């Protein structure tokens, strides 16, 4: 995912992976970070049938909100073999996230797994806003 409006990069890190994401809004930043998380895990192929789900998070600040959001995606991926995509945020501010998403099961036989992500860390996470661009760098423990 790499557009002028939103995208991510996986960057070198001493022992883990640094996920750099950007977006022209908080919503697009969160989407880009989610895409980057899945890309870190590997090239995931999903079955075509999906179902709809609602997500709700509340945190003390926007960085914790992003962390909890990605941690949930990661948890669902590991325990239920599902990916969430096509997020539609009905509310997203510094402390509250409400969204709906399409949930698809992963086709493990068709997927290529590159890294086992152990955790989405809080390490030095800081969402920075420059004019109409939001940026964040997260450390993914692999």
């Amino acid at each position, binding site marked *: 995912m790499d557009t002028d409006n939103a995208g991510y990069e996986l960057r070198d890190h*001493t*022992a883990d992976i640094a996920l750099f994401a950007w977006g022209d809004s908080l919503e697009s930043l969160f989407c880009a970070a989610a895409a980057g998380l899945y890309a870190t895990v*590997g090239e995931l192929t999903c079955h075509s049938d999906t179902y709809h789900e609602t997500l709700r998070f509340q945190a003390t600040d926007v960085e914790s909100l992003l962390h909890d959001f990605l941690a949930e995606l990661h*948890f669902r991926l*590991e*325990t239920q073999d599902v990916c969430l995509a096509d997020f539609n945020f009905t509310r997203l501010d510094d402390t509250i996230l409400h969204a709906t998403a399409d949930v698809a099961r992963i086709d*493990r036989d068709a*997927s290529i*797994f*590159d*890294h*086992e992500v*152990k*955790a989405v*860390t809080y*390490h030095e996470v800081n969402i920075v806003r420059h004019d109409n661009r939001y940026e964040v760098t997260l*450390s993914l*423990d*692999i």
Partner: protein
Amino acid sequence: MDKKFEGTLERIDQYRWRIPRSHHRDMRVDGVIYADDRLMDTIRTDYSLQQVANVACLPGIVHHSLAMPDIHFGYGFCIGGVAATDPAQGGVISPGGVGYDINCGVRLIRTNLTEDDVKPRLKVLIDKLFATIPCGVGQRGKISFDRKELKKLMREGSRFVVDRGFGFAADVEVTEAGGCIEGADPDLVSDRALERGKDQCGTLGSGNHFLEVQVVQAVFGEKAVVNQGVSTRYIYRELLKQIVRMFQTGQPPIAPEESVEIVAFIEAALESGDGGGRPVQLNI
């Protein structure tokens, strides 16, 4: 991490450096880094030295905030950082120090195989281990436990596995710490963590996890007197091998003087045992 350490770094000797506690008012002890000049040139390029200083601020820290060779920037602690804290002095357990991979350590299991047994078949053994043990990204264990069983596994370790028929009791006897951690309390582990872990049992994992086949060449320690050779676990088999070799070569496995000493020791042990463990005199 682009920041660099700007504080005081003193040389102690050729391989040790000190960050004095005067570097920051919150430091309770000095930081000591083990590195040669070449390593230190690299270490200075990231912020790991500051992390050594940060760890020196921990409540109850004992002696020094240490850093092993080749430290680099980590999560709180630098990678390669070491510290001990004393609960009596308000010491804390630092999750940053323990690491996210809590108990991601190394276990040693000793077999009854010798180097002569394994070396000619090493490739076959490795291929078999690789085929049998799930490892690598995306792999899951062949056996999945429910939550109750998982907690039992976490509490009992390898003994649980043996009771379920997946191992041999003899293996547990030669597994470090009996394959469990004394005092483990799985009730302190969240349901989410259990859910994530339940399919991982019996896998090697991925990333930097490894399994190695090694040969014990020397044993050090208080009771260690054997420099390879006899396995005390299978003493009679080893004894038989020595006897067969003696008949084949005509050479006794030990000198006659040692034989006399061993017999004397056995007789003394028997005498002591008959006397309820009273001390006896060796007659040599």
